[in-house]
């Protein structure tokens, strides 16, 4: 099934930018993926500000407590992209049967299987697959804003590690899951927005996923530090995991594509962070040995069979990997953390502007957006657009999700700065 109607302005804008042509205006994404989203509390404030229909906001990504950007807010923010996530959330239950819940006093809606307990110290504990009889897999400190994984590392014998233990959460998708994706893509495909698919299964060693907060009793290497160590000291084991993961991913992508064709424009490949604030988690040589072949396999299949553009997220000082990412076939990098070492916008645009689309880089969420003045936000947004926008290859997004407690005045300063460029 391929979309044959003329693309809408929003979709065309995205396609122009992704194909390195100058769009009519800078395309914008707020909320189409779990790394380009907005904390539910900020969404509630924005809806109030814009005078939109008053109702509790759905928490569509409950790990980071990101809220749903509905069409009315998407239009108010000038966003051009709609996300099509898989139905299962990180905790292993589905986004359905919504029920009310209170997050620090704010009424929100959460999935029916969002079942939490409260620890003695008041922390909120999340249980995998919504099963409160299973030990908790994530914790939200009392009064704070999102969850983090509880490390559940079973004893393992380093001499007898079985890659299958780290593959429990991967495998061929069920027919019903593929049906759901097809239905969701169809429902989202209203001709207005570009569509961003995020169906899971392609992430290689994403440290947010390694602890497997969706599994009741995860086996294999699940401790974050142990995983990092393993990328150095147990490479054969990691290779075996990635090899099998890619087999599953390619099978799933083929089945998904057979159902949805080129209805989506962008596919979320992987969220593994390679950069830190001032350096990286590994050398380029290690990247080329341990990740590149698998990314290339997946990208080759996607480019060989679909028109989807491939989106790769990596925080931090990641520019050193961009040549390899381009060679692997990655089209889009995110979040373009310009505050990290070696990520100066001018250099990135000059060196990679014709080969990579920068999806992000619009404004710093570590300092300027949460702590700056509206004027500082405006200045940075305008400057970043001036650098990144010429010739396409730029989709405006904050550098990673808009965090809780970000002043709404600063978010509006960003939106108004973008509007001033139209």
């Amino acid at each position: 099934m391929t979309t044959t109607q003329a693309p809408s302005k929003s979709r065309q804008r995205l396609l122009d930018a992704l194909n390195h042509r100058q769009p009519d205006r800078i395309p914008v994404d707020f909320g189409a993926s779990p790394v380009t989203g907005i904390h539910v509390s900020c969404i509630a404030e924005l809806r109030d500000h814009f005078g939109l229909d008053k109702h509790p906001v759905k928490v569509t990504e409950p790990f980071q407590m990101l809220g749903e950007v509905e069409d009315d807010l998407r239009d108010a923010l000038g966003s051009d992209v709609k996300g099509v996530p898989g139905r299962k959330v990180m905790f292993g239950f589905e986004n359905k049967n919504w029920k009310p819940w209170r997050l620090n006093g704010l009424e929100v809606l959460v999935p029916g299987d969002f079942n939490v307990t409260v620890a003695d110290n008041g922390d909120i504990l999340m249980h995998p697959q919504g099963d409160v009889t299973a030990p908790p897999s994530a914790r939200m400190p009392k009064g704070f804003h999102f969850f983090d994984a509880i490390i559940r590392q079973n004893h393992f014998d380093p001499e007898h590690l079985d890659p299958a233990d780290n593959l429990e959460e991967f495998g061929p998708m069920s027919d019903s899951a593929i049906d759901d994706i097809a239905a969701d893509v169809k429902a989202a495909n209203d001709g207005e927005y570009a569509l961003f698919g995020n169906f899971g299964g392609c992430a290689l060693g994403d440290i947010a996923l390694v602890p497997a907060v969706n599994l009741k009793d995860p086996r294999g290497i699940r401790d974050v530090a142990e995983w990092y160590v393993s990328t150095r000291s147990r490479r054969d084991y990691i290779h075996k995991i990635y090899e099998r993961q890619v087999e599953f991913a390619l099978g799933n992508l083929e089945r998904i594509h057979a159902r949805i064709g080129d209805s989506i424009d962008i596919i979320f490949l992987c969220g593994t962070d390679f950069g830190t604030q001032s350096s990286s988690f590994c050398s380029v040589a290690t990247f080329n040995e341990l990740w590149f072949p698998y990314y290339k396999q997946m990208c080759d299949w996607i480019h060989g069979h679909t028109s989807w553009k491939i989106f790769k997220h990596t925080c931090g000082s990641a520019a050193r990997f961009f040549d390899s990412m381009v060679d692997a076939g990655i089209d889009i990098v995110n979040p373009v953390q310009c505050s990290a070492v070696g990520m100066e916008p001018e250099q990135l645009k000059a060196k990679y502007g014709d080969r990579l689309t920068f999806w992000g880089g619009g404004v710093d969420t570590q300092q300027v957006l949460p702590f700056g003045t509206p004027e500082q936000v405006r200045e940075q947004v305008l400057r970043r657009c001036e650098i990144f926008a010429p010739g396409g290859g730029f989709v405006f997004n904050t550098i990673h999700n808009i965090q809780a407690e970000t002043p709404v005045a600063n978010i509006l300063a960003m939106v108004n700065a973008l509007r001033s460029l139209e």
Partner: protein
Amino acid sequence: MTDLKKLHDAILTGNAKAAGELTKEALAEGANPADLVANYMIPAMDEVGSLFEAEEYFVPELLLAGRAMKAALEYLRPLLAASGAKPSGKVVIGTVKGDLHDIGKNLVAAMLEGAGFEVTDLGTDVSPEKFVEAVKEKNANIVCLSALLTVTMPAMKTTLEALNAAGVRDRVKVMIGGAPVTDQYAREIGADSFSENASAAVATARRLVSE
């Protein structure tokens, strides 16, 4: 006789098993614990730090070297304590209230331990009161605060206020670090220093205790 260069190399290459065994062997042969630490282990960790700065080592290598250092220290710690050997300084370290991230904090703790500091790791989501209590109990002279999140950075300021209120701020140097943390933020909240990474934290701690 144990070739002590091998102990140095075991730590440098992150071979915890070898580091432990070589230390055990050396002690059995009558090696001086303080000599092992000062002349083989700390220089190895210093080299690890240099390789990290030069971007030849990365987080995994730091973690492995830290584990090897720990494996050797398991045998040495009781002997050093019994001999009355003084640590380079006494550090209390933790991730601040509301923040559960600990990779960076653990790396700093491991590198400081590797540099001869006595390190008390309070873990994550540590309240200001716990930091105060630990400073008093351990008689610490350095406090290291870590935060990964913009929403938990303010807890660094609250912790400094608690140290002040408890009357112990003057006897400790406070170092802060974490992805969103900056030198400017350290100055704003009255911390003594900001460190960009685990290797820099060792140099900072050494400087602060010598002041």
